[in-house]
């Protein structure tokens, strides 16, 4: 399994699309590196994009844990994201109408607890019923939460939003003053275009480290869960809940666990967002976030954690990369052009990579159980993929 143990085998194990994606990713990373060294890409901006990608990756992890694993259709990603963001903002911000001024870690905990409560509130009545209930209830819930945040000023400041939010490392030893303490660096790789790394660079670097920590832990937890019997029950529910019930699985409980897990991860994304942008408003609960999380999961490949990670990156590339295309593209009204481009990219990916970029590739059995056992040769394409490519309908 691990790259360190046996790198050669790990690479030989890759399926064709995996190899392809790996190749493209490496090339893309190199390209970015070169762009950064030559000054074509601002390092601070790049780190901001990485932070955003991390945030979308977290959102897609969360949705993947619900939809990809268990088939729960959650249309209130934005609501859980918003709960995370507001929960943490209201606890830490100086302008908070209720509490405020707490350590960001308190904010983190409170955000997660509120998300948990909300997940229970919506899960308890709906998860016993057919899967579409959750879709419906969550669609409504997202709107209700948004309207409450917008209108209940005593609680949320209403449309004014919450400002005066500290960075996540506020009050931590060393880290809280790290960006200011770091010297401004000036790197010259290409003569004439020096790269200047100032306070905001170090601040962004901290943010990136934070999101990497969040996403890294999440990824590790999800991967292990996905390969486990626990994950297998979820996948059984996704495909045939009655079968799972007949085999003695308490499907309601499993669905609840999966729903809560995903919701917490989405709230985590919200917490990060709050301390990345230092401002939250009701607009952050707009359904568009839900759209993008779905797009990321589907583009990445439903049910695949790596896919979700990749989907997060793809979303940022689509949303922010199109800004660069603007600079060169036709001088038609640029804004709708960008909207058009985003639309075209989404359609194109679905057309040419319908199972997503990195669909689940191989069977998911607890790793050490299959190790050493003669694993039949890796199929050239993934389980789903072969199905997707089938000629019959």
């Amino acid at each position, binding site marked *: 399994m691990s790259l360190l143990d046996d790198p050669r085998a790990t690479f030989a194990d890759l399926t064709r699309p995996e190899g392809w994606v790996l190749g493209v990713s490496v090339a893309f990373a190199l390209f970015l590196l070169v762009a950064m060294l030559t000054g074509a890409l601002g390092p601070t901006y790049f780190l901001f994009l990485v932070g955003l990608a991390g945030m979308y990756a977290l959102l897609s992890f969360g949705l993947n844990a619900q939809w990809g694993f268990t088939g729960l259709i959650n249309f209130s990603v934005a609501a859980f994201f918003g709960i995370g963001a507001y929960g943490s903002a209201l606890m830490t911000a100086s302008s908070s109408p209720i509490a405020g001024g707490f350590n960001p870690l308190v904010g983190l905990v409170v955000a997660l607890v509120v998300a948990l409560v909300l997940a229970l509130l919506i899960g308890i009545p709906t998860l016993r019923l057919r899967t579409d209930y959750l879709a419906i209830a969550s669609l409504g819930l997202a709107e209700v939460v948004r309207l409450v945040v917008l209108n209940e000023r005593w609680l949320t400041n209403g449309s004014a939003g919450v400002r005066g939010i500290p960075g996540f490392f506020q009050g931590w030893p060393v880290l809280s003053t790290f960006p200011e303490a770091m010297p401004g660096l000036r790197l010259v790789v290409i003569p004439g275009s020096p790269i200047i790394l100032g306070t905001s660079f170090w601040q962004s670097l901290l943010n990136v480290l934070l999101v990497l920590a969040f996403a890294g832990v999440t990824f590790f937890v999800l991967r292990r869960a996905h390969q486990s019997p626990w994950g297998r029950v979820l996948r059984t529910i996704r495909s045939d809940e009655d079968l799972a019930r007949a085999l003695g699985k308490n499907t309601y409980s499993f669905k609840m666990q999966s729903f809560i897990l995903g919701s917490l991860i989405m709230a985590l994304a919200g917490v990060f967002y709050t301390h990345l942008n230092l401002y939250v408003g009701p607009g952050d609960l707009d359904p568009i976030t839900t759209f993008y999380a779905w797009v990321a999961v589907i583009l990445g490949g439903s049910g695949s954690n790596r896919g979700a990670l990749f989907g997060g990156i793809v979303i940022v590339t689509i949303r922010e990369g199109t800004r660069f295309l603007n600079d060169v593209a036709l001088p038609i009204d640029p804004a709708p052009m960008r909207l058009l481009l985003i639309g075209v990219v989404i359609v194109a990916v679905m057309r040419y990579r319908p199972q997503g970029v990195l669909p689940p590739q191989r069977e998911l059995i607890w790793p050490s159980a299959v190790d050493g056992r003669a694993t039949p040769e890796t199929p050239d*394409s993934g389980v789903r993929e*072969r*199905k997707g*490519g*089938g*000629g*019959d309908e």
Partner: protein
Amino acid sequence: MSDGMTDDTTGAADGPHGGTDPVLSLSGVDSGYGEVQVLDDCSVRLDPGEIVCLVGPNGAGKSTVLKTAFGMLTPWTGTVAYHGRDIGGMAPEEIVREGIGYVPQTDNVFGSLTIDENLRMGGVARDGGLEEVIETLYDRFPIIERKRSAKAKTLSGGQRQVLAFARALVMEPDVLLIDEPSAGLAPNTADDVFEDVKAVNDMDTAILMVEQNVTKGLGISDRGYVLDQGTVRFEGTPEELLNDEEVSQLYLGG
């Protein structure tokens, strides 16, 4: 359409029934799902008025033969000919109109439609006389007549099987492809169905049938094929197959 017309040279005449042209024939067909090959140089023929039975182990490719013949799958190589005309790759909804009917092995009724509607759907390609045929079928299958306005998903397994069979008969096809008609049927009902198959056949419909109930299946057939791993292993009259020690041992549970 062109019943029995043989304007093309189909190189007939080397089958056991030398002389007649087959209504339906697969010759040298390779076929499968996606990239997975299932049929390997498979040849099966159905002569006018015959009942032919396909038997073989699970996963041998029997259903795949029917699906390929009916356009659900496109043959990779080889031809599927109907009255000598190549119909390989033609869409199922068009093949129905040519006069071939098909009863799938699974998912063979519209669960959310009533029995009555199921039968009507079987006749969308008919020009007329729909009501009469449906009434005839109800007469023939009282087991579904009683439930004509119930949703098909409420039927028991066996009732469904009967409905699926009836649905295909609405078109009064020339050739009928049936995938395991007796699976899940009570012995007496299975007998009825086999009798019905016989009766349909008596009205000049050639039948290609997959059956695991080999004794009864071969019992009403004129010829049989044993399929294994996508290839025809044996071909012959029911007696020949049933009496062959090896065939019977390996495939027929004898």
